[in-house]
């Protein structure tokens, strides 16, 4: 087990270095550097002035040397200075991640129980009317990406009925502000997890030990709750963990749409202004989140399922 985790950590580190290298290459393309120079200096800089500015700021040094320097600093915890936010990158990332964390917490609180309930209800009697209607509902929810549900919800609840607000503020977290972004994000992921849970539940319900329990005369309710549920929830667990990377994309869309100034919003700002240090830090954090959730899902799966033992 220890060797397995160590090997995974090794791959993780290699992936992180490779990805930041690619990001470093992309943000340092001549076009992007020129844009940076012009936003920092002034828009009407001549080509010579751009060159001089880049020379002065140290962008003309060898590529690998600068990458090595960045990697070294980052590993020591110094991620540089953000040119857009005019603050150290670590501060910005920490603050924005906190805001996004609040949003994500509520999304998870709505999405996971909702999806599991829908999936278990649909899967416990395969082929019933309840199963069919819930399945079609889950398919519909996976067909509507955040920017579609966000628009439709805003139209219904904010513009027409006026019940909720179409803008979420980082300063006040109220039901009025938060319901729409949380719903928008939860709905898209919910369908997918629900379908996985349904498949897993349906499979468990056909197994021998459930039949034995039923034949022993236990009622359906306690068979589902006591015997089937635990085994049926192993597969969705990995799916839920693997949803995190996808949630990252969702966060960017929802935060842009509802003007919630969290991590995703910071990503858009940084990318729009080619804030090199900020972009590198964001990809660093994003990759850590993705890989860490993959690792947790693998370990958790092995832990939950006694039939799998990692060599």
């Amino acid at each position: 087990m220890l060797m397995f985790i160590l090997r995974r950590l090794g791959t993780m580190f290699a992936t992180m270095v490779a990805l930041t290298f690619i990001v470093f290459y992309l943000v340092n393309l001549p076009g992007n550097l020129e844009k940076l120079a012009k936003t920092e200096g002034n828009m009407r800089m001549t080509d010579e002035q751009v060159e001089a500015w880049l020379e002065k700021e140290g962008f003309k040094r060898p590529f690998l040397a600068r990458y090595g320097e960045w990697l070294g600093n980052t590993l020591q915890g110094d991620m540089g200075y953000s040119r857009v936010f005019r603050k150290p990158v670590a501060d910005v990332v920490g603050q924005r991640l906190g805001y996004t964390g609040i949003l994500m917490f509520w999304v998870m609180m709505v999405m996971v129980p909702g999806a599991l309930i829908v999936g278990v209800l649909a899967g416990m009697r395969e082929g019933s009317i309840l199963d069919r209607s819930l399945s079609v509902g889950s398919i519909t929810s996976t067909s509507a990406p955040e920017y579609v549900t966000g628009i439709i919800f805003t139209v219904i609840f904010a513009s027409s009925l006026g019940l909720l607000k179409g803008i979420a503020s980082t300063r006040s977290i109220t039901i009025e502000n938060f319901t729409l972004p949380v719903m928008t994000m939860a709905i898209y992921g919910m369908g997918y997890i629900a379908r996985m849970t349904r498949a897993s539940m349906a499979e468990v319900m056909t197994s021998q030990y459930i039949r034995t329990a039923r034949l022993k005369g236990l009622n359906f309710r306690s068979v589902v709750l006591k015997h089937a549920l635990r085994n049926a929830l192993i597969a969705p667990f990995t799916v839920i963990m693997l949803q995190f990377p996808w949630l990252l994309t969702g966060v960017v869309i929802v935060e842009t749409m509802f003007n919630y100034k969290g991590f995703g919003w910071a990503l858009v700002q940084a990318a729009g202004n080619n804030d090199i240090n900020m972009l590198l830090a964001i990809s660093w954090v994003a990759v850590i989140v993705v890989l860490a959730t993959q690792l947790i899902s693998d370990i958790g799966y092995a832990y939950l399922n006694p039939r799998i033992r990692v060599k």
Partner: protein
Amino acid sequence: MEPLSTVEIIIQTIIRFWPTWTAIGLTIFGCYFIREKMGVVGRLYGSTVGMWGAVLVLFWIFTAIFADLIAVQPALEQSFAPGMKKSAPGTGFMKDLEDGTQVAVYYLWGGDNLARDLFSRVVYGSQVVLIIAPAATLIAYMVGSTLGLPAGYYLGWIDTLMSFLANLVLAFPVILLFYLLVTPEVNEVKLIPIGPINLPWSLPIGMAAFFFLFPIIFLCTMWYTKYEKNPQRLATYIGVTLVVGLWLYSGLAFNSDPLGIVGMAPNELNVFAAVILGSSPGVFRIVRGLTMDIKTRDYVAAAQTRGERPWYIMLWEILPNARGPLIVDFCLRIGYTTILLGTLGFFGLGLSPESPDWGSMINHGRAFVRLSSTVHLSLFPAIALMTLVLGLNLLADGLREESLKD
């Protein structure tokens, strides 16, 4: 002019789509008689969910084909009548024709902020989406299969390397990737002189040039492994593939088709390359997984004993037998690609701003979504995108259910 009432808007909208309704009816009626010969697709007639999916998908396919008949006016035409900007659904005005007469034109789904007809734009948008999404998915499939088959068949270091690369792309936040790839500054086209011609070059062109190679390699390997012993047929097939392939290749990737027929605007190429990059790793994973599974079957062992070459086994034994799950996944993935395209449009990274693709329309309309009188600007393209993806997902679900019955 009196605006139309809600009922009139609905009736007129249904009437405008008449070519689509006719075509859907004919297709479903016609295919009913040959359903026995259509394999798993024919069995969709037994599944309600799959049938609804097929109808939704056919609806948008035929709308894209007959867009010129359905649309009221060209996608970019603006109205200069007063009050048509952001006008409510059903508003009409008198349009001057070239011969001096006037004709009543109604904006069934309202006008956008530049007084263009939303209905026509959504209809023309289906063309953009239905060309790019399936084409990009198809190429992603060729890339994913060409790399996934050997990874799953040989395992070992090839698999380790390829899986590492696939995970690398999958671990990359899609939006960050798109932002970095699709910014105009990165995509300035440079001309590199190579001998007699100037080769246009930029990062997306390079990526597209790389990805577009795969279909040619894929097809050539397929023909070579199958007709190795039949030089005449081999020469014809490879010849045709190379001529057509390289012709399309020069036109699509480098926009320098010698005949000047095929070409892609730089914007479209960026989006295309970005979407292929985004969906290839997923295809790679599923093909690799299926290959590892099918490799253990007896008919593969039989082919190995016959002394067939590995690539023959991969392309002519394993791939055809993986077609069931792959067809289902293909349907789902077109939907996913449509969502990706919309995401690009939503962030304003996609096609040119005036393009009628649904993502860009949602992006332009979302500034007006908080006022109940202007919600239609983004609502209609959003519903259009959702129905198409829903259709594809339902179709995939129906296909999966039917193929599991075997």
